[in-house]
Protein backbone atom coordinates (compact mmCIF):
# COMPACT_ATOMS: atom_id res chain seq x y z
CA UNK A 1 0.00 0.00 0.00
CA UNK A 2 2.91 2.26 0.75
CA UNK A 3 4.18 1.81 -2.79
CA UNK A 4 0.71 2.54 -4.09
CA UNK A 5 0.62 5.92 -2.37
CA UNK A 6 4.14 6.76 -3.42
CA UNK A 7 3.31 5.89 -7.00
CA UNK A 8 0.23 8.08 -6.84
CA UNK A 9 2.26 11.02 -5.54
CA UNK A 10 4.87 10.53 -8.19
CA UNK A 11 2.18 10.31 -10.86
CA UNK A 12 0.56 13.47 -9.60
CA UNK A 13 3.87 15.30 -9.53
CA UNK A 14 4.70 14.11 -13.03
CA UNK A 15 1.30 15.24 -14.19
CA UNK A 16 1.88 18.64 -12.63
CA UNK A 17 5.26 18.84 -14.25
CA UNK A 18 7.39 18.94 -11.09
CA UNK A 19 10.48 16.82 -10.91
CA UNK A 20 11.27 16.19 -7.29
CA UNK A 21 13.72 13.76 -5.73
CA UNK A 22 11.80 10.83 -4.21
CA UNK A 23 13.57 11.60 -0.96
CA UNK A 24 11.21 14.45 -0.49
CA UNK A 25 8.05 12.42 -0.46
CA UNK A 26 8.80 8.72 -0.15
CA UNK A 27 8.05 8.80 3.59
CA UNK A 28 4.51 9.87 2.89
CA UNK A 29 3.52 6.48 1.44
CA UNK A 30 4.42 4.28 4.41
CA UNK A 31 3.12 6.84 6.83
CA UNK A 32 -0.23 7.05 5.11
CA UNK A 33 -0.48 3.30 4.91
CA UNK A 34 0.33 2.98 8.58
CA UNK A 35 -2.21 5.62 9.49
CA UNK A 36 -4.91 3.91 7.46
CA UNK A 37 -4.19 0.54 9.03
CA UNK A 38 -4.15 2.16 12.43
CA UNK A 39 -7.45 3.86 11.84
CA UNK A 40 -9.05 0.64 10.64
CA UNK A 41 -7.84 -1.30 13.61
CA UNK A 42 -8.83 1.45 15.99
CA UNK A 43 -12.28 1.20 14.54
CA UNK A 44 -12.36 -2.49 15.20
CA UNK A 45 -11.54 -1.89 18.83
CA UNK A 46 -13.67 1.18 19.41
CA UNK A 47 -16.70 0.15 17.42
CA UNK A 48 -16.30 -3.36 18.73
CA UNK A 49 -16.32 -2.09 22.29
CA UNK A 50 -19.37 -0.02 21.47
CA UNK A 51 -21.22 -2.98 20.08
CA UNK A 52 -20.10 -5.41 22.74
CA UNK A 53 -21.10 -3.21 25.63
CA UNK A 54 -24.56 -2.97 24.11
CA UNK A 55 -24.53 -6.69 23.55
CA UNK A 56 -23.45 -7.32 27.11
CA UNK A 57 -26.32 -5.32 28.45
CA UNK A 58 -28.80 -7.08 26.25
CA UNK A 59 -27.39 -10.51 27.00
CA UNK A 60 -27.27 -9.92 30.71
CA UNK A 61 -30.78 -8.56 30.58
CA UNK A 62 -32.09 -11.57 28.76
CA UNK A 63 -30.30 -13.98 31.05
CA UNK A 64 -31.72 -12.20 34.06
CA UNK A 65 -35.17 -12.17 32.51
CA UNK A 66 -35.09 -8.49 31.77
CA UNK A 67 -35.21 -6.60 28.52
CA UNK A 68 -32.01 -4.60 28.80
CA UNK A 69 -31.76 -1.18 27.13
CA UNK A 70 -34.79 -0.43 25.02
CA UNK A 71 -35.03 3.28 24.51
CA UNK A 72 -31.98 5.06 23.20
CA UNK A 73 -31.86 4.84 19.43
CA UNK A 74 -34.78 2.74 18.51
CA UNK A 75 -36.49 -0.34 19.67
CA UNK A 76 -33.47 -2.30 20.88
CA UNK A 77 -31.57 0.57 22.39
CA UNK A 78 -29.00 0.48 19.61
CA UNK A 79 -27.36 3.69 20.66
CA UNK A 80 -27.27 3.06 24.37
CA UNK A 81 -23.47 2.70 24.41
CA UNK A 82 -23.08 5.92 22.50
CA UNK A 83 -25.13 7.66 25.11
CA UNK A 84 -23.04 6.06 27.82
CA UNK A 85 -19.90 7.19 26.06
CA UNK A 86 -21.11 10.77 25.87
CA UNK A 87 -21.95 10.68 29.54
CA UNK A 88 -18.50 9.36 30.34
CA UNK A 89 -16.75 11.97 28.25
CA UNK A 90 -18.60 14.73 29.96
CA UNK A 91 -17.98 13.37 33.42
CA UNK A 92 -15.46 15.05 35.72
CA UNK A 93 -12.07 13.43 35.68
CA UNK A 94 -11.24 12.90 39.32
CA UNK A 95 -7.84 12.09 40.72
CA UNK A 96 -7.62 11.11 44.40
CA UNK A 97 -5.26 13.16 46.52
CA UNK A 98 -3.42 10.09 47.70
CA UNK A 99 -2.82 8.86 44.17
CA UNK A 100 0.43 8.76 42.28
CA UNK A 101 -0.70 11.27 39.71
CA UNK A 102 1.67 10.38 36.95
CA UNK A 103 0.94 6.67 36.93
CA UNK A 104 -2.70 7.14 37.75
CA UNK A 105 -3.18 9.09 34.59
CA UNK A 106 -1.03 6.86 32.50
CA UNK A 107 -2.39 3.47 33.54
CA UNK A 108 -5.56 3.33 31.37
CA UNK A 109 -3.55 4.20 28.29
CA UNK A 110 -1.00 1.49 29.05
CA UNK A 111 -3.81 -0.98 29.29
CA UNK A 112 -5.48 0.14 26.13
CA UNK A 113 -2.25 0.43 24.19
CA UNK A 114 -1.32 -3.13 25.10
CA UNK A 115 -4.69 -4.44 24.06
CA UNK A 116 -4.59 -2.48 20.86
CA UNK A 117 -1.04 -3.54 19.99
CA UNK A 118 -2.21 -7.11 19.82
CA UNK A 119 -4.26 -6.25 16.76
CA UNK A 120 -1.05 -5.33 15.01
CA UNK A 121 -0.36 -8.97 14.23
CA UNK A 122 -3.91 -10.28 14.00
CA UNK A 123 -4.82 -11.26 10.44
CA UNK A 124 -8.42 -10.76 9.41
CA UNK A 125 -8.02 -12.56 6.12
CA UNK A 126 -5.17 -13.65 3.90
CA UNK A 127 -2.94 -10.62 3.66
CA UNK A 128 -5.26 -8.38 5.66
CA UNK A 129 -3.04 -7.85 8.62
CA UNK A 130 -1.40 -4.87 10.27
CA UNK A 131 2.05 -6.33 10.23
CA UNK A 132 2.86 -9.76 8.91
CA UNK A 133 4.97 -11.44 11.56
CA UNK A 134 6.14 -14.99 11.33
CA UNK A 135 5.73 -15.30 15.09
CA UNK A 136 2.38 -13.58 15.29
CA UNK A 137 0.82 -16.10 17.72
CA UNK A 138 3.64 -15.62 20.11
CA UNK A 139 3.53 -11.89 19.69
CA UNK A 140 -0.17 -11.67 20.43
CA UNK A 141 0.11 -13.86 23.50
CA UNK A 142 2.97 -11.71 24.74
CA UNK A 143 1.08 -8.51 24.12
CA UNK A 144 -2.12 -9.74 25.73
CA UNK A 145 -0.05 -10.42 28.82
CA UNK A 146 1.02 -6.78 28.83
CA UNK A 147 -2.46 -5.51 29.40
CA UNK A 148 -2.21 -6.53 33.00
CA UNK A 149 0.56 -4.06 33.43
CA UNK A 150 -1.78 -1.14 33.13
CA UNK A 151 -4.18 -2.74 35.58
CA UNK A 152 -1.44 -3.25 38.12
CA UNK A 153 -0.23 0.30 37.73
CA UNK A 154 -3.77 1.54 38.12
CA UNK A 155 -4.24 -0.54 41.21
CA UNK A 156 -1.06 0.69 42.72
CA UNK A 157 -1.27 4.30 41.72
CA UNK A 158 -4.81 4.82 42.97
CA UNK A 159 -3.58 4.93 46.54
CA UNK A 160 -6.52 2.88 47.68
CA UNK A 161 -6.41 -0.46 49.36
CA UNK A 162 -9.22 -1.80 47.19
CA UNK A 163 -7.33 -0.92 44.12
CA UNK A 164 -4.10 -2.35 45.47
CA UNK A 165 -5.73 -5.64 46.24
CA UNK A 166 -7.32 -5.72 42.85
CA UNK A 167 -4.00 -5.04 41.19
CA UNK A 168 -2.22 -7.72 43.16
CA UNK A 169 -4.85 -10.28 42.40
CA UNK A 170 -4.65 -9.38 38.77
CA UNK A 171 -0.90 -9.74 38.75
CA UNK A 172 -0.97 -13.17 40.35
CA UNK A 173 -3.81 -14.38 38.19
CA UNK A 174 -2.53 -13.23 34.84
CA UNK A 175 1.03 -14.39 35.37
CA UNK A 176 -0.30 -17.81 36.35
CA UNK A 177 -2.75 -18.15 33.51
CA UNK A 178 -0.19 -17.28 30.91
CA UNK A 179 1.36 -20.71 31.46
CA UNK A 180 -1.60 -22.93 30.50
CA UNK A 181 -2.59 -20.49 27.80
CA UNK A 182 0.84 -20.74 26.24
CA UNK A 183 0.60 -24.52 26.45
CA UNK A 184 -2.74 -24.51 24.67
CA UNK A 185 -1.58 -22.17 21.96
CA UNK A 186 1.37 -24.46 21.37
CA UNK A 187 -0.97 -27.20 20.22
CA UNK A 188 -2.02 -25.61 16.91
CA UNK A 189 1.53 -24.38 16.52
CA UNK A 190 2.81 -27.93 16.82
CA UNK A 191 0.18 -29.32 14.47
CA UNK A 192 0.85 -26.68 11.83
CA UNK A 193 4.56 -26.33 12.38
CA UNK A 194 4.48 -22.54 12.21
CA UNK A 195 3.73 -19.59 14.45
CA UNK A 196 2.44 -17.53 11.59
CA UNK A 197 -1.27 -16.97 12.08
CA UNK A 198 -1.88 -16.47 8.39
CA UNK A 199 -0.29 -19.81 7.65
CA UNK A 200 -2.20 -21.50 10.45
CA UNK A 201 -5.44 -20.07 9.12
CA UNK A 202 -4.66 -21.07 5.55
CA UNK A 203 -3.86 -24.60 6.62
CA UNK A 204 -7.44 -25.02 7.78
CA UNK A 205 -8.88 -24.14 4.41
CA UNK A 206 -11.52 -26.45 3.02
CA UNK A 207 -14.29 -28.27 4.79
CA UNK A 208 -14.85 -27.61 8.48
CA UNK A 209 -13.39 -31.06 9.21
CA UNK A 210 -10.09 -29.44 8.53
CA UNK A 211 -10.39 -27.10 11.49
CA UNK A 212 -7.85 -27.83 14.13
CA UNK A 213 -10.42 -28.25 16.86
CA UNK A 214 -11.51 -31.39 15.07
CA UNK A 215 -7.98 -32.55 14.44
CA UNK A 216 -8.02 -35.08 17.23
CA UNK A 217 -9.63 -35.57 20.63
CA UNK A 218 -6.80 -33.81 22.41
CA UNK A 219 -7.00 -30.67 20.31
CA UNK A 220 -10.73 -30.67 20.95
CA UNK A 221 -10.02 -30.79 24.66
CA UNK A 222 -7.33 -28.19 24.46
CA UNK A 223 -9.67 -25.67 22.89
CA UNK A 224 -11.81 -25.65 26.03
CA UNK A 225 -8.76 -25.26 28.21
CA UNK A 226 -7.65 -22.39 26.00
CA UNK A 227 -10.99 -20.70 26.22
CA UNK A 228 -11.03 -21.00 30.02
CA UNK A 229 -7.55 -19.56 30.28
CA UNK A 230 -8.34 -16.82 27.81
CA UNK A 231 -11.36 -15.84 29.86
CA UNK A 232 -9.17 -15.71 32.92
CA UNK A 233 -6.37 -13.80 31.29
CA UNK A 234 -8.69 -11.09 29.98
CA UNK A 235 -10.03 -10.84 33.47
CA UNK A 236 -13.61 -11.78 32.74
CA UNK A 237 -16.09 -13.41 35.06
CA UNK A 238 -15.95 -15.87 36.69
CA UNK A 239 -12.30 -14.90 36.98
CA UNK A 240 -12.80 -11.14 37.46
CA UNK A 241 -11.24 -11.08 40.88
CA UNK A 242 -9.46 -7.84 40.18
CA UNK A 243 -12.73 -5.92 40.09
CA UNK A 244 -14.78 -8.06 42.41
CA UNK A 245 -17.43 -5.56 43.41
CA UNK A 246 -18.68 -7.59 46.31
CA UNK A 247 -15.32 -7.44 48.05
CA UNK A 248 -13.25 -4.67 46.53
CA UNK A 249 -15.88 -2.07 45.58
CA UNK A 250 -14.67 -2.05 41.98
CA UNK A 251 -11.15 -3.34 42.29
CA UNK A 252 -8.44 -1.64 40.38
CA UNK A 253 -10.71 0.95 38.79
CA UNK A 254 -12.42 2.00 41.98
CA UNK A 255 -10.93 5.49 41.77
CA UNK A 256 -11.38 5.99 38.05
CA UNK A 257 -14.12 7.87 36.37
CA UNK A 258 -15.00 9.33 33.06
CA UNK A 259 -12.98 8.68 29.96
CA UNK A 260 -10.11 6.99 31.77
CA UNK A 261 -12.50 4.46 33.17
CA UNK A 262 -13.93 3.83 29.72
CA UNK A 263 -10.44 3.18 28.40
CA UNK A 264 -10.15 0.23 30.74
CA UNK A 265 -13.37 -1.08 29.33
CA UNK A 266 -12.28 -0.52 25.78
CA UNK A 267 -9.15 -2.48 26.63
CA UNK A 268 -11.16 -5.25 28.21
CA UNK A 269 -13.52 -5.65 25.29
CA UNK A 270 -10.64 -5.29 22.88
CA UNK A 271 -8.84 -8.11 24.61
CA UNK A 272 -11.95 -10.24 24.63
CA UNK A 273 -12.30 -9.83 20.93
CA UNK A 274 -8.60 -10.43 20.44
CA UNK A 275 -8.48 -13.74 22.29
CA UNK A 276 -11.72 -14.84 20.67
CA UNK A 277 -10.37 -14.04 17.24
CA UNK A 278 -7.21 -15.88 18.16
CA UNK A 279 -9.29 -18.88 19.17
CA UNK A 280 -11.16 -18.66 15.90
CA UNK A 281 -7.95 -18.62 13.90
CA UNK A 282 -6.17 -21.25 15.95
CA UNK A 283 -9.00 -23.72 16.30
CA UNK A 284 -11.93 -22.78 14.08
CA UNK A 285 -10.46 -22.18 10.70
CA UNK A 286 -10.09 -18.40 10.97
CA UNK A 287 -11.50 -16.71 7.92
CA UNK A 288 -12.38 -19.99 6.21
CA UNK A 289 -16.04 -20.84 6.22
CA UNK A 290 -17.29 -24.30 7.07
CA UNK A 291 -17.88 -24.96 3.38
CA UNK A 292 -15.32 -23.64 0.90
CA UNK A 293 -17.56 -21.50 -1.25
CA UNK A 294 -14.89 -19.08 -2.40
CA UNK A 295 -12.10 -21.60 -2.45
CA UNK A 296 -10.44 -23.02 -5.54
CA UNK A 297 -12.73 -26.01 -5.27
CA UNK A 298 -15.84 -23.98 -6.05
CA UNK A 299 -15.82 -20.36 -7.21
CA UNK A 300 -12.08 -19.85 -7.11
CA UNK A 301 -12.61 -16.28 -5.97
CA UNK A 302 -9.88 -16.28 -3.41
CA UNK A 303 -6.73 -14.47 -4.35
CA UNK A 304 -4.83 -16.97 -6.34
CA UNK A 305 -1.35 -17.39 -5.09
CA UNK A 306 0.24 -15.72 -8.04
CA UNK A 307 -2.06 -12.75 -7.54
CA UNK A 308 -0.81 -12.26 -4.05
CA UNK A 309 2.80 -12.57 -5.06
CA UNK A 310 2.49 -10.01 -7.79
CA UNK A 311 0.19 -7.81 -5.78
CA UNK A 312 -2.45 -7.87 -8.47
CA UNK A 313 -5.92 -6.77 -7.49
CA UNK A 314 -9.02 -8.74 -8.43
CA UNK A 315 -12.48 -7.72 -7.35
CA UNK A 316 -13.52 -11.33 -6.80
CA UNK A 317 -10.51 -11.90 -4.58
CA UNK A 318 -11.38 -8.77 -2.68
CA UNK A 319 -14.92 -10.00 -2.14
CA UNK A 320 -13.68 -13.36 -0.99
CA UNK A 321 -11.35 -11.69 1.48
CA UNK A 322 -14.16 -9.46 2.66
CA UNK A 323 -16.35 -12.50 3.23
CA UNK A 324 -13.50 -14.20 5.07
CA UNK A 325 -13.01 -11.14 7.24
CA UNK A 326 -16.72 -11.12 8.08
CA UNK A 327 -16.47 -14.78 8.83
CA UNK A 328 -13.67 -14.28 11.28
CA UNK A 329 -15.37 -11.38 13.01
CA UNK A 330 -18.55 -13.43 13.32
CA UNK A 331 -16.64 -16.31 14.87
CA UNK A 332 -14.90 -13.96 17.26
CA UNK A 333 -18.25 -12.42 18.18
CA UNK A 334 -19.61 -15.82 19.00
CA UNK A 335 -16.66 -16.29 21.31
CA UNK A 336 -17.25 -12.96 22.98
CA UNK A 337 -20.93 -13.77 23.39
CA UNK A 338 -20.06 -17.03 25.04
CA UNK A 339 -17.84 -15.15 27.45
CA UNK A 340 -20.77 -12.92 28.32
CA UNK A 341 -23.02 -15.89 28.69
CA UNK A 342 -20.52 -17.44 31.10
CA UNK A 343 -20.20 -14.19 33.00
CA UNK A 344 -23.88 -13.94 33.68
CA UNK A 345 -24.29 -17.61 34.43
CA UNK A 346 -21.50 -18.64 36.72
CA UNK A 347 -20.74 -17.18 40.14
CA UNK A 348 -17.36 -15.60 40.77
CA UNK A 349 -14.65 -17.89 42.11
CA UNK A 350 -12.55 -17.20 45.18
CA UNK A 351 -8.95 -16.23 44.51
CA UNK A 352 -7.65 -19.56 45.77
CA UNK A 353 -10.12 -21.34 43.54
CA UNK A 354 -8.91 -19.27 40.64
CA UNK A 355 -5.33 -20.26 41.29
CA UNK A 356 -6.30 -23.89 41.83
CA UNK A 357 -8.19 -23.92 38.53
CA UNK A 358 -5.06 -22.73 36.84
CA UNK A 359 -2.38 -24.78 38.52
CA UNK A 360 -4.26 -27.94 39.38
CA UNK A 361 -6.48 -28.32 36.36
CA UNK A 362 -5.59 -26.16 33.41
CA UNK A 363 -1.84 -26.72 33.46
CA UNK A 364 -1.94 -30.51 33.79
CA UNK A 365 -4.80 -30.78 31.35
CA UNK A 366 -3.01 -28.59 28.85
CA UNK A 367 0.21 -30.53 29.30
CA UNK A 368 -1.51 -33.88 28.84
CA UNK A 369 -3.32 -32.65 25.78
CA UNK A 370 -0.13 -31.24 24.39
CA UNK A 371 1.62 -34.55 24.78
CA UNK A 372 -1.42 -36.31 23.37
CA UNK A 373 -1.44 -34.13 20.28
CA UNK A 374 2.26 -34.65 19.77
CA UNK A 375 1.82 -38.40 20.04
CA UNK A 376 -1.16 -38.23 17.70
CA UNK A 377 0.94 -36.40 15.17
CA UNK A 378 3.95 -38.67 15.55
CA UNK A 379 1.89 -41.82 15.33
CA UNK A 380 0.10 -40.40 12.33
CA UNK A 381 -3.26 -41.29 13.79
CA UNK A 382 -6.31 -40.45 11.72
CA UNK A 383 -8.18 -37.19 11.90
CA UNK A 384 -11.46 -36.14 10.19
CA UNK A 385 -9.39 -34.20 7.72
CA UNK A 386 -8.14 -37.45 6.24
CA UNK A 387 -11.66 -38.17 5.01
CA UNK A 388 -11.83 -35.18 2.73
CA UNK A 389 -8.46 -33.50 2.42
CA UNK A 390 -8.77 -30.47 0.17
CA UNK A 391 -5.39 -29.22 1.30
CA UNK A 392 -2.85 -31.55 2.68
CA UNK A 393 -1.60 -29.86 5.76
CA UNK A 394 1.80 -31.44 5.49
CA UNK A 395 2.25 -29.74 2.16
CA UNK A 396 1.91 -26.32 3.67
CA UNK A 397 4.16 -26.90 6.59
CA UNK A 398 7.84 -26.19 6.65
CA UNK A 399 8.04 -25.37 3.03
CA UNK A 400 11.13 -23.31 3.49
CA UNK A 401 13.08 -26.45 4.11
CA UNK A 402 12.02 -27.74 0.75
CA UNK A 403 13.07 -24.61 -0.98
CA UNK A 404 16.14 -23.54 0.88
CA UNK A 405 17.65 -26.58 2.38
CA UNK A 406 18.50 -28.95 -0.36
CA UNK A 407 22.30 -29.01 0.06
CA UNK A 408 23.85 -32.29 1.16
CA UNK A 409 23.46 -33.30 4.74
CA UNK A 410 19.85 -32.31 5.05
CA UNK A 411 16.97 -34.55 4.30
CA UNK A 412 13.92 -32.75 2.99
CA UNK A 413 10.85 -33.48 5.05
CA UNK A 414 8.62 -36.28 3.95
CA UNK A 415 5.80 -35.08 1.74
CA UNK A 416 3.33 -37.81 1.08
CA UNK A 417 0.79 -36.13 -1.15
CA UNK A 418 1.90 -36.50 -4.77
CA UNK A 419 0.94 -32.97 -5.74
CA UNK A 420 2.25 -31.51 -2.54
CA UNK A 421 5.35 -29.77 -3.74
CA UNK A 422 3.85 -27.21 -6.10
CA UNK A 423 1.01 -26.46 -3.72
CA UNK A 424 3.41 -26.04 -0.87
CA UNK A 425 5.46 -23.59 -2.84
CA UNK A 426 2.53 -21.40 -3.57
CA UNK A 427 0.87 -21.53 -0.22
CA UNK A 428 4.02 -20.44 1.46
CA UNK A 429 4.34 -17.66 -1.05
CA UNK A 430 0.86 -16.49 -0.15
CA UNK A 431 1.87 -16.37 3.45
CA UNK A 432 4.89 -14.28 2.66
CA UNK A 433 3.17 -11.89 0.39
CA UNK A 434 0.73 -10.55 2.92
CA UNK A 435 3.21 -8.10 4.36
CA UNK A 436 2.73 -5.38 1.84
CA UNK A 437 -0.94 -4.89 2.13
Amino acid at each position, binding site marked *: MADFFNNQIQGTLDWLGFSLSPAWYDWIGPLTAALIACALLLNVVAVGALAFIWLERKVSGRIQDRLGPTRVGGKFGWLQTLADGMKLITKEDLTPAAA*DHFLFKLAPYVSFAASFSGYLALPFAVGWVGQELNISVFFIIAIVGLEVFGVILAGYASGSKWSLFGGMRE*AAQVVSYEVPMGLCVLVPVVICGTMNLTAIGEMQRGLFTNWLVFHDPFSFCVFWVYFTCATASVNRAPFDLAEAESELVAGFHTEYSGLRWSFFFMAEYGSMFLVSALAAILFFGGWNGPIPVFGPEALNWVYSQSDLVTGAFRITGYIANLAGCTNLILKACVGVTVMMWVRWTLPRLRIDQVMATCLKYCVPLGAVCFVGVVVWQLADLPSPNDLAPPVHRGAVRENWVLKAATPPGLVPPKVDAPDAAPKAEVTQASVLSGRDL
Partner: protein
Amino acid sequence: MILQAAINWQSFYFLLFAFVACGFALAVVFSNNIVHMAFFLTLSLGAIAGLFFLAGAEFVGAMQFMIYVGGTLVLLIFGVMLTAQSKFVSMKTAAGEWVLGAILGGALFVLLIRAGFAVPEWNTPRSDAASLVAADAQHATAIGGAVTGYRVDRLSEENPVLRNGMSGYLLPFEIVSIHLLVVLIGASYLARTKKRVKVAV
Protein backbone atom coordinates in the same frame (compact mmCIF):
# COMPACT_ATOMS: atom_id res chain seq x y z
CA MET B 1 19.41 19.45 4.29
CA ILE B 2 18.07 16.47 6.08
CA LEU B 3 16.12 15.07 3.18
CA GLN B 4 18.95 14.99 0.65
CA ALA B 5 18.65 11.24 0.50
CA ALA B 6 15.71 8.96 1.12
CA ILE B 7 14.97 8.34 4.73
CA ASN B 8 16.41 5.10 5.90
CA TRP B 9 13.50 3.77 7.86
CA GLN B 10 15.64 1.17 9.51
CA SER B 11 17.86 3.86 10.95
CA PHE B 12 14.91 6.02 11.77
CA TYR B 13 13.24 3.39 13.84
CA PHE B 14 16.54 2.43 15.38
CA LEU B 15 17.03 5.96 16.57
CA LEU B 16 13.48 6.11 17.85
CA PHE B 17 13.74 2.90 19.82
CA ALA B 18 17.30 3.63 20.96
CA PHE B 19 16.28 6.97 22.36
CA VAL B 20 13.29 5.50 24.10
CA ALA B 21 15.37 2.68 25.53
CA CYS B 22 18.23 4.89 26.67
CA GLY B 23 16.03 7.68 27.89
CA PHE B 24 13.88 5.49 30.06
CA ALA B 25 16.90 3.57 31.27
CA LEU B 26 18.30 6.86 32.51
CA ALA B 27 14.90 7.65 33.95
CA VAL B 28 15.09 4.41 35.89
CA VAL B 29 18.36 5.52 37.39
CA PHE B 30 17.19 8.97 38.27
CA SER B 31 13.78 8.13 39.54
CA ASN B 32 13.37 7.59 43.23
CA ASN B 33 9.92 6.08 43.18
CA ILE B 34 10.23 2.35 42.79
CA VAL B 35 6.99 1.93 40.89
CA HIS B 36 7.93 4.69 38.52
CA MET B 37 11.19 2.93 38.02
CA ALA B 38 9.38 -0.24 37.15
CA PHE B 39 7.21 1.61 34.67
CA PHE B 40 10.19 3.27 33.03
CA LEU B 41 11.97 -0.02 32.93
CA THR B 42 9.00 -1.51 31.13
CA LEU B 43 9.15 1.12 28.48
CA SER B 44 12.88 0.75 28.16
CA LEU B 45 12.66 -3.02 27.80
CA GLY B 46 9.80 -2.66 25.35
CA ALA B 47 11.95 -0.38 23.24
CA ILE B 48 14.74 -2.92 23.44
CA ALA B 49 12.32 -5.50 22.15
CA GLY B 50 11.67 -3.10 19.30
CA LEU B 51 15.42 -3.01 18.67
CA PHE B 52 15.40 -6.78 18.52
CA PHE B 53 12.67 -6.69 15.95
CA LEU B 54 14.69 -4.21 13.97
CA ALA B 55 17.73 -6.44 14.07
CA GLY B 56 15.68 -9.24 12.60
CA ALA B 57 15.34 -11.16 15.82
CA GLU B 58 11.58 -11.27 15.93
CA PHE B 59 11.38 -14.33 18.10
CA VAL B 60 13.71 -12.92 20.70
CA GLY B 61 11.80 -9.67 20.59
CA ALA B 62 8.49 -11.35 21.25
CA MET B 63 10.15 -13.39 23.93
CA GLN B 64 11.44 -10.22 25.51
CA PHE B 65 7.88 -8.94 25.60
CA MET B 66 6.48 -12.09 26.99
CA ILE B 67 9.02 -12.96 29.60
CA TYR B 68 10.56 -9.67 30.59
CA VAL B 69 7.79 -7.22 30.22
CA GLY B 70 4.93 -9.57 30.84
CA GLY B 71 6.52 -11.82 33.41
CA THR B 72 9.54 -10.50 35.15
CA LEU B 73 8.35 -6.98 35.55
CA VAL B 74 4.96 -8.00 36.82
CA LEU B 75 6.85 -10.11 39.30
CA LEU B 76 8.96 -7.12 40.26
CA ILE B 77 5.96 -4.93 40.84
CA PHE B 78 4.41 -7.72 42.75
CA GLY B 79 7.51 -7.70 44.91
CA VAL B 80 7.26 -3.99 45.33
CA MET B 81 3.70 -4.29 46.52
CA LEU B 82 4.54 -7.06 48.93
CA THR B 83 7.45 -5.21 50.44
CA ALA B 84 6.11 -1.67 50.44
CA GLN B 85 6.65 -0.02 53.79
CA SER B 86 5.02 3.28 53.38
CA LYS B 87 2.61 4.02 50.64
CA PHE B 88 5.20 5.03 48.08
CA VAL B 89 8.61 3.76 48.78
CA SER B 90 11.54 6.00 48.20
CA MET B 91 14.92 5.56 49.75
CA LYS B 92 17.23 8.44 49.19
CA THR B 93 20.74 7.83 48.09
CA ALA B 94 23.53 9.96 49.48
CA ALA B 95 24.88 12.62 47.17
CA GLY B 96 28.38 11.27 47.47
CA GLU B 97 27.30 7.97 46.14
CA TRP B 98 25.61 9.63 43.26
CA VAL B 99 28.81 11.41 42.35
CA LEU B 100 30.88 8.29 42.71
CA GLY B 101 28.41 6.25 40.65
CA ALA B 102 28.30 8.93 37.98
CA ILE B 103 32.08 9.09 37.71
CA LEU B 104 32.52 5.34 37.56
CA GLY B 105 29.59 4.84 35.23
CA GLY B 106 30.82 7.60 32.97
CA ALA B 107 34.25 6.07 32.84
CA LEU B 108 32.84 2.67 32.05
CA PHE B 109 30.58 4.14 29.40
CA VAL B 110 33.43 5.94 27.72
CA LEU B 111 35.44 2.76 27.70
CA LEU B 112 32.63 0.72 26.26
CA ILE B 113 31.80 3.24 23.58
CA ARG B 114 35.44 3.48 22.59
CA ALA B 115 35.63 -0.26 22.37
CA GLY B 116 32.42 -0.50 20.40
CA PHE B 117 33.47 2.04 17.78
CA ALA B 118 37.10 1.05 17.66
CA VAL B 119 36.71 -1.89 15.33
CA PRO B 120 36.17 -0.72 11.77
CA GLU B 121 34.38 -3.88 10.81
CA TRP B 122 31.75 -3.29 13.44
CA ASN B 123 31.58 0.33 12.54
CA THR B 124 30.74 -0.09 8.88
CA PRO B 125 27.14 -0.86 8.07
CA ARG B 126 26.35 -3.62 5.66
CA SER B 127 26.37 -2.19 2.20
CA ASP B 128 23.47 -4.29 0.90
CA ALA B 129 21.40 -3.83 4.04
CA ALA B 130 18.50 -2.22 2.21
CA SER B 131 17.92 -5.25 0.02
CA LEU B 132 18.09 -7.55 2.99
CA VAL B 133 15.34 -5.89 4.92
CA ALA B 134 12.79 -7.17 2.48
CA ALA B 135 13.89 -10.78 2.81
CA ASP B 136 12.05 -12.78 5.32
CA ALA B 137 14.34 -14.77 7.51
CA GLN B 138 11.67 -17.08 8.94
CA HIS B 139 13.29 -16.83 12.28
CA ALA B 140 10.95 -18.71 14.51
CA THR B 141 11.28 -21.89 12.49
CA ALA B 142 14.97 -21.34 12.00
CA ILE B 143 15.49 -21.02 15.73
CA GLY B 144 13.42 -24.13 16.32
CA GLY B 145 15.63 -25.96 13.86
CA ALA B 146 18.77 -24.54 15.39
CA VAL B 147 17.81 -25.81 18.81
CA THR B 148 17.66 -29.30 17.40
CA GLY B 149 20.90 -28.85 15.51
CA TYR B 150 19.38 -28.04 12.15
CA ARG B 151 21.21 -24.89 11.17
CA VAL B 152 19.54 -23.03 8.35
CA ASP B 153 22.01 -20.19 8.65
CA ARG B 154 24.92 -22.54 8.21
CA LEU B 155 23.80 -24.29 5.08
CA SER B 156 26.78 -22.97 3.21
CA GLU B 157 29.19 -24.01 5.91
CA GLU B 158 31.93 -26.21 4.58
CA ASN B 159 32.55 -28.09 7.76
CA PRO B 160 29.76 -30.68 7.92
CA VAL B 161 30.12 -30.94 11.67
CA LEU B 162 29.22 -27.31 12.07
CA ARG B 163 26.43 -27.63 9.55
CA ASN B 164 24.32 -29.86 11.68
CA GLY B 165 24.49 -31.99 14.76
CA MET B 166 27.34 -30.51 16.72
CA SER B 167 26.05 -26.99 16.61
CA GLY B 168 22.68 -27.91 18.12
CA TYR B 169 21.42 -26.34 21.28
CA LEU B 170 19.20 -29.14 22.47
CA LEU B 171 21.29 -30.02 25.51
CA PRO B 172 21.64 -26.42 26.72
CA PHE B 173 17.95 -26.01 26.10
CA GLU B 174 17.15 -29.00 28.26
CA ILE B 175 19.57 -27.87 30.92
CA VAL B 176 18.00 -24.44 30.97
CA SER B 177 14.55 -26.01 31.21
CA ILE B 178 15.55 -28.12 34.17
CA HIS B 179 17.31 -25.16 35.70
CA LEU B 180 14.18 -23.09 35.35
CA LEU B 181 12.11 -25.79 36.98
CA VAL B 182 14.53 -26.11 39.86
CA VAL B 183 14.66 -22.36 40.27
CA LEU B 184 10.88 -22.11 40.35
CA ILE B 185 10.61 -24.78 42.99
CA GLY B 186 13.42 -23.15 44.95
CA ALA B 187 11.87 -19.72 44.68
CA SER B 188 8.48 -20.90 45.82
CA TYR B 189 10.16 -22.70 48.69
CA LEU B 190 12.06 -19.58 49.68
CA ALA B 191 9.04 -17.36 49.45
CA ARG B 192 6.62 -19.68 51.21
CA THR B 193 4.72 -18.53 54.25
CA LYS B 194 6.73 -19.36 57.29
CA LYS B 195 5.24 -20.11 60.60
CA ARG B 196 6.35 -17.18 62.63
CA VAL B 197 6.86 -17.70 66.30
CA LYS B 198 5.46 -14.58 67.80
CA VAL B 199 7.39 -13.51 70.84
CA ALA B 200 5.00 -12.12 73.37
CA VAL B 201 6.10 -8.65 74.41
